[in-house]
């Protein structure tokens, strides 16, 4: 996979033809999308994780990662949580451009006041990306995840836009 800056990001839901690409993503031990142990998940569980709500993220037409945006909190509270993962070969700059494109699309037809991302404390790549995106690091919910025999917290990140009303 080339790591030059992609000219275009596109998204779509996965089809059967994408199965090999998706399984390939989850062979990466830190492809932490909806799971803390991606490389040991069986195929059917990966299929459930990358369900209808997940979008394949394509950089110049090639599968580069996955994401989904979920409503959180109160009904119509304009509060969302973003689950985003790019494959290990994607440089940090890809995270920034993918995040901006996801945001632009998400805020196109919907008001978002708070967008949250939650990263486990052992996820070096995810933490580095979230910090590079300029999200506010709000704090850590301590000792909620066990990984390689150690306990880690979940780090809360968010971006907030002042509500219109």
């Amino acid at each position, binding site marked *: 996979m080339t790591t030059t800056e992609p000219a*275009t*990001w*596109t*998204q779509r839901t996965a089809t059967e033809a994408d199965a090999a690409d998706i399984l390939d993503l989850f062979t990466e031990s830190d492809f932490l999308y909806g799971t803390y142990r991606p490389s040991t998940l069986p195929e059917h569980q990966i299929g459930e994780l990358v369900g209808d709500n997940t*979008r394949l*993220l394509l950089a110049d037409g090639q599968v580069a990662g996955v994401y989904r945006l979920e409503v959180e909190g109160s009904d119509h509270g304009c509060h969302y949580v973003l689950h985003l993962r790019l494959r290990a070969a994607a440089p940090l700059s890809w995270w920034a451009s993918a995040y901006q*494109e*996801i945001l*632009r*699309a*998400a*805020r*196109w*037809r*919907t*008001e978002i006041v708070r967008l949250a991302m939650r990263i486990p404390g052992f996820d070096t790549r995810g933490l580095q990306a979230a910090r590079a995106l300029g999200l506010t690091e709000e704090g850590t919910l301590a000792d909620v995840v066990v990984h390689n025999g150690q306990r880690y917290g979940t780090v809360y990140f968010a971006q907030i836009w002042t509500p*219109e009303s």
Partner: protein
Amino acid sequence: MMLRGYRSADAALLTGPWLPGELLGLPVKDWPALAEPTTIRPPADYNEELGVAADVGFARFAELDWSHRRARVEIGLHGADQAEQLLKTAVHYAFTALALRRLHGWVTPALGEDTAILESAGFARETVIPDVLWFDGRPVAREIWGVVRHD
């Protein structure tokens, strides 16, 4: 230009980067690459009519009120070239084939579309509804444009 009934082979015409319900449904400039396009459903009941201009676009007559002979209209096109012709064809179809008396539609000024096409098809601006739609990161106004058959 002629309108004909919807066929399943026309499905690709029903999806595009335009605002839902927009009277003049032309591709919106700078539509985000990751934003879902708008899709209208194929006609499924008698409360709407969908006329297809083959390989060009569609004219949808929604909220059909057969008693008062009115409908809300929207067109969808993948290019601007034939917008005026499709709109005029839609008005003619509504007034002659459907025997409607009045059509109205939503126009979003923030899109910056040329309203001369609407006027050319007989539509006039009737009212402005402030902050009625979330678009491009902010609430925007929409206008109602209507055309009435006078004969």
